[in-house]
């Protein structure tokens, strides 16, 4: 299964600090361990929210664009990875090995897959998709 690993923002990450050389080296070693274990599918850091945007939708679908920075630093995301692991426990064990300090928080969220949908819902989706395929084949 795939798990999305969300590294939550800190005051330092929001200030645009990249961390010290030692912190970088420790992250490098950690990244190497993960790579050697074959679990990483994607991984990147994000710019601070001051350079981010939000798009909000109202009831009619009208949009408003909001410029960063955004409040509630601890709820923001500073970096992410997508791991392929056997279980959420495995992902937790891997996160425990991360060289984070100073109140850093990492959130783990399973990426939805077929087994997360109920059978009836899955059948409904799959019937709709079959119809879509048939329409495409007919050139409609």
């Amino acid at each position, binding site marked *: 299964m*795939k798990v999305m690993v969300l590294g939550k923002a800190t005051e330092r990450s929001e200030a645009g600090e990249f961390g010290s050389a030692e912190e970088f080296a420790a992250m490098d070693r950690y990244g*190497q361990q993960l*790579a*050697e*274990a*074959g*679990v*990483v*599918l*994607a991984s990147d850091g994000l710019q601070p929210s001051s350079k981010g945007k939000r798009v909000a939708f109202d009831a009619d679908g009208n949009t408003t664009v909001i410029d960063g920075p955004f409040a509630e630093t601890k709820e923001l995301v500073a970096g992410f990875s*997508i791991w*392929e692991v*056997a*279980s959420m*426990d*495995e992902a*937790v*064990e*891997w996160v425990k090995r991360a060289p984070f300090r100073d109140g850093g928080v990492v959130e783990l969220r399973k990426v939805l*897959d*077929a087994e997360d949908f109920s059978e009836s819902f899955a*059948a409904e989706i*799959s*019937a709709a*998709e*079959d119809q*879509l*395929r048939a329409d495409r084949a007919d050139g409609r």
Partner: protein
Amino acid sequence: MVSATQQAIEAVWRIESARLIAGLARIVRDVGLAEDLAQDALVAALEQWPESGVPDVPGAWLMAVARRRGVDTIRRAVTLRSKVELRCRDLPEHETPMDEIEFEPHVEDDVLRLFFIACHPVLSVDARVALTLKLVAGLSTEEIARAFLVHTTTMAARITRAKKALTEANVPFEVPVGEELADRLSSVLEAVYLVFNEGYTATAGEQWARAELCQEAMRLGRMLATLAAGESETHALVALMEIQASRLRARIGSDGEIVTLDKQDRARWDRLLIMHGLAALNRAEEIGGTGSYAIQAKIAACHAGAPRAGDTDWVRIASLYGDLVGLTRSPIVELNRAVAVSMADGPAAHICSPGPAAPDQACSTGSFRCRALRPTLPLSARKRPTMPHSAHKALFW
């Protein structure tokens, strides 16, 4: 009900077992004994961690316990030998006791050595696959047996025989060098790809076990691509498996039937796996990219790059199959090439010649097959040829 600690132990085992067994194998010079010691440490963890909690550095805990047991085992052996020596004074002095040997930090190399020993040529291909899953992937004998649809006792016997064969052949725990490396690496890659195909092509067995085998194979492949990063075929195999696996969820229809490549809903392909696979193929090409896995990965990439089945670049695929024929001389590959050529140029094109890349020797058999195929060749790229299952699966699955 499995307790939270037990789940944590299983996760720790999955993460640590390869490094643990590999590190121990370097010390005790016997991969079978190393695995026994690691298993003992796992049992100790199952007994103690529910009480004491999971240690902060669980890998080091397991290694310490396993080493201590290893020291005991070797001491007993040394004591036994000393007793024998009393009677046979002409035997040499015993070696340094185990606890005086320094624990070296080359853990990555250890895991690579473990791959090579699990796929050693003294073992049958079946045994290599089983040992790789047991020693490197950290699967239990029950899990491996279930995935391969055999009884646990059968699989246990296969694994025991394999470990015994390695001990008897006194196989050194090392990464091969020079000319031997290419051959040995291809055995390792073959075992990993067999695991993948067991999951990918078989239609029997529990669905989850099948998908799991594909994931195990991809994990092993990615490990190899990091541990032997200078070998282009390791990256190529990762690319091939990931691009093929990207279609897994589009490949099973609502009634559980196999949906062929040309009829799959391409929106359901796993774009992340395709991207990761294409990046791996890039790395393979940067340092070579002419091996058979690289060519197969390039063919898979051609399919992945076509938004609709009708957009498939059959000219390139036919040319890649030509390269592959030159490399493998496999009749199945020739057959696939013939199909690709017919998709590219229409059904008449391939009949006269198997193409410049095909070896002369293959011409007669090649055209024989072409004649045999003629009545069933497709008239357009939209129509899938009706051919024996084994012949077109590489092309259409």
